[in-house]
């Protein structure tokens, strides 16, 4: 019997360690995972908070400077809402970045300037051509 206590104790210690690791890491490293309309509807709540937002790059809104590695564009809600936010980014512009594609931006939102400061811009692309085919055919 004594040995089975040892196992239970080990299990409890293990669970605590995992729990503690998760909690401490979440509190420091987690960011909000939002849609564009959630920010525009509630700018106070998310002001200057770390977040990751998915959106569609609006046509005709891209300003880019390859030399200075600067990018300014607007993304629109992907769930069909009309809401948009402007995104500013300094860094290497991803190869696949262009108009009318899905991007995932990570960074902070500034409600005063109504501007999203992106630290990373991820373009979602590989093997995703579906829907496009019909457009090309017409």
């Amino acid at each position, binding site marked *: 019997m004594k*040995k*089975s206590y040892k*196992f239970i104790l*080990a299990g409890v210690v*293990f669970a605590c*360690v*995992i729990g503690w*690791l*998760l909690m401490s*890491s*979440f509190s*420091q*490293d*987690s*960011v*909000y*995972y*939002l849609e564009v309309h959630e920010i525009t509807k509630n700018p106070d709540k998310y002001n200057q908070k770390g977040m*990751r937002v*998915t959106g569609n790059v609006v046509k005709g809104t891209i300003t880019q400077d*390859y*030399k200075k*590695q600067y990018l300014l564009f607007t993304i629109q809600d992907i769930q069909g809402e009309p809401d948009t936010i402007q995104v500013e980014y300094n860094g*290497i*512009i991803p*190869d*696949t*970045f*262009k108009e009318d594609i899905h991007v*995932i931006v*990570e960074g902070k939102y500034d409600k005063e300037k109504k501007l999203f400061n992106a630290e990373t811009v*991820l*373009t*979602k*692309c*590989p*093997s*995703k*051509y*579906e*829907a*496009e*085919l019909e457009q*090309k*055919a017409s």
Partner: protein
Amino acid sequence: MGQLGNLFQILGLVSGFAAFGMYVYAMQTQNKSTAKTADMIMIGQLVAFSLASCVLIYALATGYFKMEYVAQYTDLKLPFIYKISGWWAGQAGSLLFWGWLVAVFAVIEIFRTRNYDTKYRSTVLAVSALTSTFFLILTIFVTNPFKELDFFPADGMGMNPLLQNPGMLYHPPTLFLGYVGYTITVGHAFAALFNRDSSSNWFVDTRKWTIITWVFLTIGIVLGGEWAYVELGWGGYWAWDPVENASLLPWLTSTALLHSGMVFERRNKLKIWTHMLALISFQLCLFGTFITRSGVLDSVHSFAKSSLGYFFLAFIVITSAVFLYYLFKMIDELKDKDEHQFSFLSRDGMFFLANWFFLGLTIVIGIGTMMPIISGLILPDKITVGIPYFNKVSAPFFVLILLASGIAPLLGHGKAETKDLVKKFAPSVLAMIAAVAALVVTGHTQPLPILLTGFTTFSLVAILVSVITNVKKGGVKVLVNNRRYYGGLIIHLGVVMMAYGIIASSFYNDKKDVTVAPGESFEFSGYTLKVGELAAEERANYVGVYAPVTVFKNGKELMTLAPERRFYEKNEQAFAEVAISSKLHGDLYLILASYSKTENFVGIQAVFQPFIAWVWIGCIVMVIGGLYGATGGKKKNA
């Protein structure tokens, strides 16, 4: 042509259902002739699957763009070999490929187990038949590669340039092989439960399947990293992307499975663990596909959202429930009996701990990956975690795993004596202290990489000590006679090499972004890089623009690298093609980030990744170890 492919698919579906039904009947009645008929039908399913695949490959190769799938992933100018790789490049095709592999494995198993007990083998094969048929349901009803358009496009969309890399030819197939093999393992685990057999026979019987599948999974994951490294051009190989994690999770649990199974085989312990790990590994492989295909998580790899996810979820839940039902039915026979003989300070004890470490790692990575979904269900806001989270939560587990992998080979199977231990561990501990001291003296200050290097060195020396003492005792022939044990040690050696590579390249890499005029030089990481005039080059389906960069060290010219940007005909945007000079002590990695002829500038991102080559070398060593161990015979105690 689409109809023909569909016809074969439906034939495969019908035979799949028939075979499954017959196997289930044979499971109940032990009727040999029913099982025999089911075998023939399963072979028939493989034929139908293969013919359907041939139709798809033929359509891809000849550019039959009326089939939507062909039009989506290929075009006229695509090199032939990539046209063929279209089989697994897209969603529908890759599911067909996966199902086909399950059918192939099932037929191999039909022949391999032909003399086994009818009830047992019927159970194993029923699991395979169910799985292969599940994939056909998907490719017929949810995402059909043979769907035809109502017009014939003049040309296809072409393959994404990022996929036009040799990686496309070998990464997905190896990864799929690394997933599919667990269908056989889990089939045997279930057959043992269904037959109320609590012995380790099922594990021993599938050991080779499991190891070889594990080897493929290892290669698949590392090749994926290598591909990202050479093709995606951010200078790294692992970004904790949901899809990458999805392939790592079954690797972690199946690594635990291999360890747990050894204790099961030798000591008749950890039975529930081993069964559960077989189930979890199999389900995580499907779960990985669910993650990629359902669109529930945003990832660079994700396919478009579709209803596929529900099918996967249903399959995972139902099959797990059945498995668990039979597991609980015989739980008393599976429980470990003689716990009092168990000591943590034995090799078995270490294996037991390793189970927990691997499972813990699986849980924290799994929770991080699923965070957007989990938090969406229980919290008012959806929350996600990034790279820092994964690095932080996984680091302690990696430390523990390295430590356990160093301690285990030096311990016997029984409880160890303290005096012996001190003698055995002295060299490893000394080496660990020396490694830490060396790093500190040379001015390294970050605690985590120092700690990790220390434990890696501990593990390395422990492996060497174990080999040397055994060879001294029994001569070189022990290395050949006990291939299972030394295969395992070789794998650990590979892990250690990889660990050094990962630690060095993640903590001590160097990065610089510069924009210079052609002809100018800049200093980077001990090198002088001179950027030359831009040049262009026309190829089959793209135009490449590159900047020759001449590399000098201490005034001596070493080489010229040519980072490039490619413009593919079907894509408006450019794709960076990096230039890498790979050496054992580190890689010099150059990206042509930007350029302009009119403004006369070239933007280069330079990265130095120390010891990264050891990640790939370590993987090769792991594969060698796995294969060497797989050739080993039955139970032999080291």
